[in-house]
């Protein structure tokens, strides 16, 4: 038996955008165990719910993470609305859905760029981020922010979109769909990309379910599970079919995210076509009393928002379980048996967001 040694990995590593630390147990170059530890970016945002008005906390919730900000604000609002039994207007539900799907496109394009960067494919990285700019520009034009949108409020949305804006979003979706083809072709067919991703970090379907994987990580293993199928917001009126792949390797995870971009662009166009006229928010009276679990599909997977109100303007508890929290146990399993040089790529393919996880 080879001599065992422990190599510290992270929290600062060139391939990782977020601070996660792993103690890798190695036998020669093979990883036989990985012990994750987090705690480098904890900000105590959940505790802040006791200090802030429940309406003000929307702005805190969406600052949990820069990439999933739209979803965090939306998930929190939905949980509070359910506690207070508020019926959100149909137009607001469609607006939230459009922004959420735009958010998914920009998150996946960001991840694709990071993946290309991790492989040393710089021109592909830049091209992915060039496409992402179109979505960010549309966010800027419709919400007033590129990353933090501040459009969700308890009871609906703060901003509306006129016909020109909806047409602009559809135009941007068409352009991205057209221009993403060479990027997709490269990620799916290129020899160097395939040789780096295929057969690496295989997660079987049964293991994925058993270890509690969520989002593209779960769907890449062949499990057709997507929270959007529950039909929250306007998803009930749209054609949502989970995008799946069968192999469960890094290539499949990349494939699922690529096709989810196309799916999201389709959903944006559908929602823009079907959006009804009417109010965008209803007035909110009183304070929340009771508790509720809301589930939404973030770009990285299923996120859970728990809210408990006591009848005052400050909530008793807000709890957020992020997709990365669920994806860390399968990631640790994937690392066992891989080579040291493959560790960064495997960690990257779960799309870790440690800022979300630590809140």
């Amino acid at each position, binding site marked *: 038996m080879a001599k065992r040694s422990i190599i510290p990995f992270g929290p600062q590593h060139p391939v990782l955008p977020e601070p996660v630390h792993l103690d890798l147990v190695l036998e020669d170059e093979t990883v036989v165990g990985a012990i994750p530890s987090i705690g480098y970016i904890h900000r105590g945002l959940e505790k802040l719910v006791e200090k802030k008005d429940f309406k003000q906390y929307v702005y805190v919730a969406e600052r949990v993470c820069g990439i999933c900000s739209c979803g965090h604000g939306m998930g929190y609002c939905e949980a509070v609305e359910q506690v207070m039994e508020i019926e959100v207007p149909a137009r607001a539900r469609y607006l939230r859905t459009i922004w959420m799907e735009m958010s998914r496109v920009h998150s996946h394009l960001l991840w694709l760029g990071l993946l290309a960067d991790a492989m040393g494919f710089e021109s592909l990285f830049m091209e992915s981020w060039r496409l992402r700019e179109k979505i960010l520009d549309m966010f800027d034009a419709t919400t007033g922010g590129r990353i933090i949108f501040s459009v969700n409020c308890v009871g609906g949305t703060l901003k509306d979109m006129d016909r020109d804006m909806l047409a602009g979003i559809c135009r941007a979706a068409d352009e991205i769909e057209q221009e993403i083809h060479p990027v997709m072709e490269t990620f799916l067919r*290129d020899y160097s990309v395939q040789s780096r991703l*295929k057969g690496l970090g295989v997660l079987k379907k049964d293991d994925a379910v058993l270890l509690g994987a969520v989002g593209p990580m779960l769907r890449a293993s062949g499990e057709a599970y997507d929270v959007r199928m529950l039909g929250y917001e306007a998803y009930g009126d749209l054609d949502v079919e989970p995008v799946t792949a069968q192999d469960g390797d890094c290539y499949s995870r990349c494939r699922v995210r690529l096709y989810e971009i196309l799916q999201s662009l389709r959903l944006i166009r559908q929602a823009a076509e079907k959006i009804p006229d009417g109010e965008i928010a209803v007035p909110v009276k009183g304070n929340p009393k009771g508790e509720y679990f809301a589930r939404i599909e973030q770009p990285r997977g299923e996120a859970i928002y728990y809210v408990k109100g006591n009848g005052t303007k400050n909530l008793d508890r807000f709890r957020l379980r992020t997709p990365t929290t669920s994806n860390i146990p399968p990631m640790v399993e994937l690392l066992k048996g891989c080579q040291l040089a493959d560790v960064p790529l495997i960690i990257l393919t779960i799309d870790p967001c440690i800022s979300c996880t630590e809140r």
Partner: protein
Amino acid sequence: MLEDAKMLTFARTALKNLFSRPATVGYPYEPAKFPQRMRGHIEIQTENCIRCGLCMRSCPPGAIRVDKAAGTWTINRFDCIQCGSCAGACPKKCLSLVPGYTEPDYQKKEEVFYLPEKAPAAKPAQTAAKPAETAVSP
């Protein structure tokens, strides 16, 4: 395993990008374009302010301070998160989010606006005295 793999798939796009115009704006040589809705910074029309203090109470980070007795409206632009909560709460609609970022600085400062009843000039003034240029050191 890699039977359907192709070589140099991205070469055409990479070459096209090499000879086409940059996708980025040449800031600061070209001016940055801001969309109309951009949440850049808060502006106040002091003549309409009734000193109710609703903006101060609605501000999530507590960046706004309204002093009714002194007749001042103070904002710490470094604490402001540009959420627009104050603009939504203002009954007189004298607060608005306008495009354009505030300038960076090496010191946190508050900007004080004098409300008309107390002082006729509605011009902003700095409370913290601006340090001399020589004070800037790494």
